């Protein structure tokens, strides 16, 4: 069972969360060429190893988180708030 250490709620079972997907994807500007959109929407590196991904703590604080996780071993290396401002504020608290 994965346990995710939510920066707001503490360590919780992953069944409290929903999986968002690859957090490395950067959506391009609305008027970017179709090929650029195609790559962002459809193509994946599909990493076997450490990947950054988003999880939603839907049965907890309802925050979106960025989780750094090994897709082969399921080891979780870091968990931060997805919103950069919130993440920075939390960082400052410590």
């Amino acid at each position, binding site marked *: *069972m*994965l346990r995710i250490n939510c920066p707001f709620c503490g360590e919780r*079972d*992953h*069944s409290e969360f*929903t*999986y968002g*997907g*690859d957090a490395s994807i950067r959506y391009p500007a609305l008027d970017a060429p*179709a*090929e650029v959109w*195609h*790559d962002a*929407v*459809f*193509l*994946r*590196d*599909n990493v*076997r190893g450490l*990947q950054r*991904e988003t*999880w939603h703590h839907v049965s907890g604080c309802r925050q979106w988180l960025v989780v750094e996780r090994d*897709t*082969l*071993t*399921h080891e979780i290396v870091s968990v931060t708030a997805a919103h950069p401002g919130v993440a920075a504020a939390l960082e400052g608290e410590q």
Partner: protein
Amino acid sequence: MTRYSAWSVFKNGLTGQRGWERAWRDPEPKAHYDVVIVGGGLHGLATAYYLAKNHGVRNVAVLEKGWLGGGNGGRNTTIVRSNYFMPGNRDFYEHSLTLWENLSHELNYNVMFSQRAHISLLHSPGARDAAARRYNTMRLTGSDGELWDLARLKREVPHLNYAPDARFPIIGAAVQPRAGTARHDAVAWGYARAADQLGVDILQNCEVTGVRRDGGRVTALETSRGEVRADKVGFAVAGNTSRLWQMADLGGLPIESHKLQAFVSEPLKPLLDQVVVFGVGGAHFYISQSDKGGMVFGGDIDWYKSYAQRGNLPIVQDTAEAATSILPCLGRVRLLRHWSGVMDMSMDGSPFICKTPLSNLYLNAGWNYGGFKASPGSGWYFADLIANDRPDDTIAHFTLNRFERGVIIDERGAGPDPKLHG
């Protein structure tokens, strides 16, 4: 090679079972092949067989990093059906089902294909209307399909939970009588034996670790058993496609690797002689009974990306809940085993059987969790693509660039989110 027959079973029964020969050779890799297929799952083995059988290409090797059928080929819940709706899917899976119907004879190997009917339970008038549309379309295009009302369903499958206060009360079923199950290991062994007989080298414990290129062509594969040169190369590696793709330095793919779990119970007396699927709104569950008596069942994928060939407990709980809500009589049955497999989940839920940016590299991938039924058809058309260097019309749309062209084949209507495609 001995042909299997009632006579050979009888004779060996009388002579202490000592007369059987090994089913396929265990050769050393040759330095060069006309075609090398990477992946000794059902798709790779079927491709090698049809290359030799249909196209006379016999200098062929199948490279398998582990043992035959040790991947998803031997991990699935063995459901075979062709009740697809989208043009393109429908004709492909129907051709595959037709091949299944003669497969044991074709391969001289009993794959235990059992056409015991696939029953999708319906829980709402909307689901029944959608099923009527789908199953009528199947009938119009040469397949079989029936809609059963509740009275008929109760006669055929008496012990489902028909209570009006069930979580999803049942109102009827959509049924494909020609669908069923097969013994997955036997399919791998049958294809391997038949391909070997036609001269194909099946190389187990042979992992591809690198792809040598000369500009726009593949020249050789680096493997744990030395370098193997090839005129043409086909990838059929189920959940590991992205890794091979990156070895060939080809960048991203419309694929993510996810895992799916399956379960088998202790053996029971005959309880269910069909495949039953429960899955509209809120749950997803499929179950059948193996010839040994075990209840074989599964549900959803684990919802997050993974290359680990092991599952997680929340899905065990979900699946058990679905099992007991639909078949309460299973409540005290013990689980015997549970395992998982890594699959390519594609961006629209449909597969790829296509050419690639490299002129002599061909791709067979993206089977999501429905590729077992596809094995014969997939091998048939992938062999044809490799031999003739052009896709047959039946698979012409299973391309990588369908997303660019806006011609996705999204059977479920779930959008570009791999975890949502079944």
